[in-house]
């Protein structure tokens, strides 16, 4: 069989199963089992699949994913996230678009403690939108900033998806974690710039309102109590990697322990909350890891059948410039993101894309960052970006999906600008990495 026929058959079967509603992990498993039977010599192939799948999950490189989950769960359940919002509230004075800026600020702060965006969107949505409605904010300035900034969770460490990218693409996880920080901050700045411009041009979207005056001593006290400890947690994840004290796995463990200690120190962690956080972190990890385990089997199947090799040669012999190829890959990720979740997209495309990028001579870390921005963009893009549905869940009654789509689009444009910036100026990625690693 020609490689492209094999590829269409395997991918077609996978897509079919996913679309009729077979859970993603079991769609992968089914294709792996049947594929192993057909292409790897019948029953022996299936037995090998068992061996491969246990081998794939027995990897300490995947361990951070589970521990990053602990950080996010503990932060939200113990109320640390609420404390952060309170502090922001005190620090942001009277300014136009105040609540929208708070959404971006909250998105950045939360992103330093959580590795997936669902928690951020739920918390920002439920804590800020009622106030925004009350103050007469229009939907583009209430829902938009929340949707936009929630995605920062995967762009600023800890980031479960960044770790996964490193594992599946066989790239240095430490480097990816460092490389995403600056692009993440650039995205936050772009969001803030957009909010400022929109509020200036069209003041009616975000009416100003009087707020009680917070004296400086109280601002400082609140900052010291709530923001400074976060610095310690951030250090326990990113700092220890910078300093070469710990591997990404160890950094994840120290981040998890630091978050729990912080919650204990603030007397916010009851036994019940601790138990619930651990149970839920474990559930979320299981959900992700089962997909990861089956998807690794899937990429081995692709390699075994010669599809990876065939596809790579075909792309390499295309008569367009290498940068064009990279651009097309990135756009394909955004497009897929309109219909699928981040995990399946990463796990289907990375085994094919990374070898091509490396072969073309590009810095794979640069590509990884572009890839993550594209994933983040896709997760917040219509029609079925997962974040949008979470937003719908916490938005005020009477909010339609159309309201949410319209609110999301300006922030998607910001994401595209970030993509173009990183694509045009790879230094945004390579410079910090070079600084930190020698």
């Amino acid at each position, binding site marked *: 069989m020609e490689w492209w026929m094999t590829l269409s058959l395997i991918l077609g079967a996978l897509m079919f*199963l*996913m*679309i*009729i*509603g*077979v*859970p*993603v*992990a*079991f769609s992968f*498993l*089914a294709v792996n*089992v049947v594929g192993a039977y057909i292409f790897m010599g019948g*029953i022996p192939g*299936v*037995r090998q*699949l*068992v*061996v491969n*799948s*246990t081998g794939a*999950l*027995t*990897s*300490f490189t*995947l*361990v951070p994913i*589970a*521990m990053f989950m*602990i950080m996010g769960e503990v932060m939200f359940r113990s109320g640390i996230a609420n404390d952060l919002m309170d502090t922001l509230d005190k620090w942001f004075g009277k300014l136009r678009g105040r609540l929208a800026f708070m959404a971006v600020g909250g998105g950045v702060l939360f992103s330093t403690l959580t590795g997936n965006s669902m928690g951020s969107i739920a918390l920002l949505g439920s804590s800020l939108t009622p106030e925004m409605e009350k103050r007469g904010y229009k939907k583009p300035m209430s829902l938009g900033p929340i949707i936009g900034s929630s995605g920062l969770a995967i762009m600023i460490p800890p980031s479960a998806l960044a770790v996964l990218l490193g594992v599946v693409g066989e790239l240095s996880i430490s480097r990816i974690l460092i490389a995403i920080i600056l692009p993440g901050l650039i995205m936050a700045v772009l969001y803030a710039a957009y909010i400022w411009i929109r509020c200036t041009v069209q003041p009616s979207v975000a009416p100003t309102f009087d707020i009680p005056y917070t004296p400086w001593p109280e601002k400082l006290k609140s900052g010291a109590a709530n923001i400074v400890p976060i610095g310690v947690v951030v250090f326990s994840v990113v700092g*220890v990697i910078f300093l070469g*004290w*710990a591997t990404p*796995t*160890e950094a*994840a*463990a*120290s981040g*998890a*322990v630091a978050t729990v200690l912080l919650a204990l120190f603030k007397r916010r962690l009851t036994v019940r909350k601790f138990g619930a956080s*651990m*149970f839920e*972190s*474990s*559930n979320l*990890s*299981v*959900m992700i*890891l*089962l*997909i990861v*385990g089956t998807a690794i089997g899937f990429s081995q199947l692709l390699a075994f059948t010669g599809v990876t090799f065939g596809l790579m040669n075909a792309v390499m012999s295309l008569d367009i410039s290498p940068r064009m190829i990279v651009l097309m890959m990135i756009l394909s990720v955004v497009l897929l993101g309109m*219909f*699928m*979740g981040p*995990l*399946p997209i990463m796990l289907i495309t990375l085994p094919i894309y990374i070898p091509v990028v490396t072969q073309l001579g590009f810095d794979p870390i640069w590509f990884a960052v572009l890839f993550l921005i594209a994933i983040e963009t896709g997760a917040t893009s219509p029609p*079925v970006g997962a974040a949008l549905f979470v937003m719908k869940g916490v938005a005020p009654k009477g909010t339609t999906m159309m309201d949410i789509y319209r609110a999301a689009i300006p922030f998607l444009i910001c994401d595209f600008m970030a993509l173009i910036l990183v694509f045009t100026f790879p230094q945004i990625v390579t410079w910090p990495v070079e600084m930190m690693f020698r």
Partner: protein
Amino acid sequence: MSSIKMSRLNDWMAAIMRGVSAVNLALAALAAAILVAATLMVFSEIISRLLFNRSLMWTVEVSGYSLLYMTFLGAPFLLEKNRHVAIDLLAGALPATPQKILTALTNLFGAVICLYFAWYALQVTIDQYQHGIRVTSVLRPQRYIFTAVVPLSMLLLTIQFVAHAVHSLRGTSDAE
């Protein structure tokens, strides 16, 4: 079949599912306990290295094994609660009856795949046990210890898929 027999069958089914459900929950709790233990273990490695200049390198290996156990132990509970990531675009767009039939079919399909995989996973486990095959690593544990969790998990997943299919055909909601 008489209605009395039918209802007795239903009682039996319900009792079995309660038992399975308890097992699922217990295993999910065990998975969470493993996660906590693994986190503390890796953390103790950093502390030991930074403060006492002594490396506990076995933690790297054991944390990998923890992940495998955690994943397979926790999977059946998530399926019971319908929490595995799925793309429900098509099912969501269908009218009620075709939707029920589609859900039943996808669940039965899941059951077949999991049962098939469970069977060969069991054979691989037995083979590894009989040949005394070890993991190639520093600690060199017996490999069947880790493979064994796969058939267990896959069997529970099979049962859960069948239960979902039955529920879906009967029209009751299966997510509590």
